[in-house]
């Protein structure tokens, strides 16, 4: 009976220790952001890798999700004679919930895992130690531009996902199901409030960007220096970040009503 309790205690201690390390790591990133030289070139490189290279998957998934919501929404609303509200259903679903959440999950799978694998490989091949031996702080040179780029791209990609989703819903509702285009757009405009819905959506995306950026860089930076270590770190980034996104989504929604 004692052993399971001991195991639970040990696991709890490890969890708290890990949280402490993550907090310290976040502090190092915060201090690196304020320290010259400004790594603007590295930041732009990361924006390209994390943002531009994610565009196709974000746009395609946005259209697909919007189309599914449009189809399901139309089939449901038509039963209650409320098919004219399809624009509002598609828009609010995407802006308030699906846009930021699905974008964050997609970015985690595509860019978050790549970030962890890249930093982890640098650990294995001693590139980070090489930087330290050249008196260059790896957190300043490698980690901070990646984390900041992740934070910056998430709201942009989420907005793009949402816009393409609304377009997907429009194609299904208007072009295929025969709804009036003006009705679809008016319903959307009337239902969406900028402060509550759009700003809230951007807030969620920003929080998810911080979460994914921190988790992906932290897991990469603390990778065990073996190939199995890189694989484990990459997997754990996807798992931990995905769970955190969904849990934080609930709390943001519950606390701020977004």
């Amino acid at each position: 009976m004692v052993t399971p309790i001991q195991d639970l205690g040990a696991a709890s201690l490890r969890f708290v220790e890990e949280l402490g390390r993550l907090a310290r790591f976040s502090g190092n990133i915060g201090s690196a952001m304020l320290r010259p030289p400004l790594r603007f070139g590295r930041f732009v490189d990361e924006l390209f890798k994390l943002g531009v290279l994610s565009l196709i998957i974000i746009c395609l998934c946005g259209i697909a999700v919007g189309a599914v919501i449009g189809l399901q929404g139309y089939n449901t609303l038509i039963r209650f004679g409320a098919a004219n509200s399809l624009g509002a259903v598609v828009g609010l679903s995407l802006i308030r919930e699906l846009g930021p959440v699905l974008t964050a999950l997609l970015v985690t799978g595509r860019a978050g895992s790549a970030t962890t694998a890249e930093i982890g490989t640098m650990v294995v091949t001693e590139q980070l130690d090489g930087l330290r031996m050249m008196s260059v702080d790896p957190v300043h040179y490698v980690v901070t531009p990646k984390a900041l780029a992740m934070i910056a791209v998430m709201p942009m990609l989420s907005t793009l996902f949402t816009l393409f989703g609304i377009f997907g819903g429009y194609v299904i509702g208007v072009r295929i199901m025969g709804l009036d285009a003006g009705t679809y757009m008016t319903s959307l405009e009337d239902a969406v409030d900028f402060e509550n819905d759009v700003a809230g959506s951007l807030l969620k995306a920003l929080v998810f960007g911080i979460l994914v950026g921190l988790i992906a860089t932290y897991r990469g930076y603390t990778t065990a220096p073996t190939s199995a270590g890189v694989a484990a770190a990459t997997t754990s980034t996807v798992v931990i970040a995905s769970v955190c996104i969904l849990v934080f989504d609930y709390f943001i929604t519950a606390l701020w009503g977004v």
Partner: protein
Amino acid sequence: MTSNPKTATQTDTAHLAFRDVSMAFGERQVFDSLSFSFPPGRISVILGGSGSGKSTALRLIGGLIQPLSGHIIVDGDDITCLSERQMYRVRAKLGMLFQGGALLDWMSVYDNLAFPLRERRQLRADEIAERVRATLSAVGLEDADDLLPSQLSGGMIKRAALARAIIMRPLILLCDEPFSGLDPVSARRIEALLSEINQRFDITVVVVSHDIPSTMRMASKVLLLLPDGAVEGTPAELHASSDPRVASFLNPDLDAAALHEAGRVEALPSRVQTGTTW
């Protein structure tokens, strides 16, 4: 090709020193109260079998890891008392050749060499270019400047990494297994380069290796890490040692007991101070 190593003397000032350094990874003890010193301007070699702590010693000198206890002196600074930020000042005196090269894999060879210059010095682009070309030429990589590390052979990676390690003209060059994974010709080329760098730039070179012939040719001083202790001396002293552990390491094909019986007892190398657990 490889010049005769300078001879370490009693009057050498310790440039690098371990004082009662203990190190462990979890339950595994690597060193216990290890003390030794290396003279300036010479080539010193840390020899030992796999897992004996050779690379750990090098990483301790570079401040990449911290010992459990003891003091590590690098050019007068006790680096065990320094923070990571303060270590940057000490590392400006160090260059390190990593076992796998540790070249930044998204940069060309040229940019890898220019990187520390751009980071640490306020040199103009043309001065940086001149320094990079000269250093690449010194290691025989003039034509590889625009290649990525993934396009280089093992020997070329070592030479490019060596060029990056010396481009800031460090006082001390640390080399982790510079001959591993290389064919004999490439290994001899690296050996010659290290000797030339030592003599031409008067850089203290510390080589970690388990390649006995190469290291014995170049070394002025050798630290041999053994499972139950450590021994230091000149290559000649180690070769003449009657210590069966030393003899069996240097001549694995010979029976150490037979060597002892044959009377090779002269010129016993100095034993390294160690704790009671050796």
